[in-house]
């Protein structure tokens, strides 16, 4: 089963555009990443720049509108993710527990859709889906 662990760092919504993690923070996180890798469960991971340097595109009234960050109305934003392959939801949770995260950080765990879960007619529409991800 593939799960995405979504890191929602506390205060990241208002972090400066050039915000960089501390050396100690990175060192601890690297150790954690290594553990995931040595357990054979890590498939991918990325870290994201703060929303202050991001853009939101909304579609109100059928019209795409782009607005530069930061976004005052948004409280929780992504800071990065891990994609893991584990045996169960509980195991994903257990891995998340071990993350050297800060006091106000949150990790949200979400299962990745497999095309085989969809009903037949949806599967048909999604036939070439996996090619897109390649």
């Amino acid at each position: 089963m593939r799960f995405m662990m979504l890191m929602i760092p506390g205060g990241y919504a208002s972090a400066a555009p050039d915000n960089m993690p501390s050396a100690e923070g990175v060192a601890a996180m690297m150790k954690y990443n290594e553990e995931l890798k040595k357990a054979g469960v890590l498939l991918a991971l990325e870290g994201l720049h703060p929303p202050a340097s991001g853009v939101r595109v909304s579609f109100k009234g059928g019209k795409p509108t782009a607005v530069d960050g930061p976004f005052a109305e948004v409280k929780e934003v992504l800071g990065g993710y891990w994609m893991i392959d584990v045996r169960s939801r509980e195991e994903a949770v257990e891995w998340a527990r071990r993350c050297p995260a800060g006091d106000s950080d949150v990790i949200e765990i979400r299962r990745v859709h497999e095309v085989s879960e969809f009903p037949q007619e949806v599967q048909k529409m999604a036939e070439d889906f996996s090619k897109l991800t390649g």
Partner: protein
Amino acid sequence: MSATGEIDAVWRIEQRKLVARLARLLRDVGLAEEIAQDVFVLALECWPREGIPSNPAGWLTQVAKNRALDRLRRTSLIEGKHRELAIDLAELECETPGIDTTLDEDIDDDLLRLIFTACHPVLPAEQRVALALRLLVGVSTPEIARAFLVPEATIAQRIVRAKRTLRDAAIPFETPRGAERRERLGAVLEVVYLIFNEGYVATEGSHWLRADLCSEALRLGRSLAALIPGESEVQGLVALMELHASRFAARIDKAGNPILLLDQDRSQWDHSLIRRGLDGLNRAMVLTLTPGPYVLQAMIAASHARAVTAADTNWIAIAAHYQALAFVAPSPVVEINRAVAVSMAFGPAQALAVVDALRGEPRLKGLHLLPTVRGDLLAKLGRTAEARAEFLRAAELTGNDRERAVLLARANCSMRGSEVISIEQRFT
């Protein structure tokens, strides 16, 4: 979330580390596993009642160490202290394993020692597979039995025998070095690939259990690749498994019959696995100038994965890879696959020369493989009577009803050529 589910998750993550550390201290993999099991049972009793400790790994390690200490004290009293045990005892007692300290830094070395020991070539392959699933992956005996469609007692016996052999042969708990390392690594990779194939090839049994075996083999392979990143064959095996696994959904029809590689619906291939496999293959190739058997097989699988349609397949490249494979890992089955690739790349006449060189090969006696391919090549060359004789011989030899029907139909010239040719692709 259930407490048992949580405990099980902790166990799956911690189990092999625990066994690895205990095995180093006790110099006995079997005993280490027994103590680890006891500790797990204890956790199952205590944790639902008292709550899961904030550092479950620390708890397990602490309790396991205490048990190991008891055992060592008792052994050294009974058997009279032998020096090494005394040293370990001192080491064990000096360590300050405070529940909050993280695991030892040298856990990677212990894990590698455990992997190499559980997959030691002194053990028959089926025992190595059972022991590896139990010790390295944390799969229970009933689960292994269900996945392999054999009685639980059979698996239990394999594990008991394997542990006894390791003890009786006094296999040291070490990571092999120098010349021995290559052979020992080969034995480890064989186990990983056997587990994968058990899940991939057979069509009997519950689909999910079999898919689970493939996933376990992939995780074990990835783990090994992370622990020894410099070995091209390890990277090659992981890439090979990822490329095969990418076809998991496309390889069987709704009735459970295998769909031959060239007939598969390629839109059903998992392209994220293909990408991972191709990346892994690149890493493996950077690590060596002389690719080994797993890297070469991954190169063959990659040639298929890169072809958008079956007609786009680069058969010349595949024939060349088979030739290299026949050189590093000679086998008549590899030669037959090479003949099929040569036929696709250069035509049946050249392929027939490859196949004819195999006549009289003792390892192919009694198998339908050779007459099937030879019949196909002869048919393509218009030598119909000879082709018919080969197909009839092949039909007699196959144990599979569906294959027999196809072969008999070919003997009667009512079946197109590609169908029989692609039967052989399953042997890649």
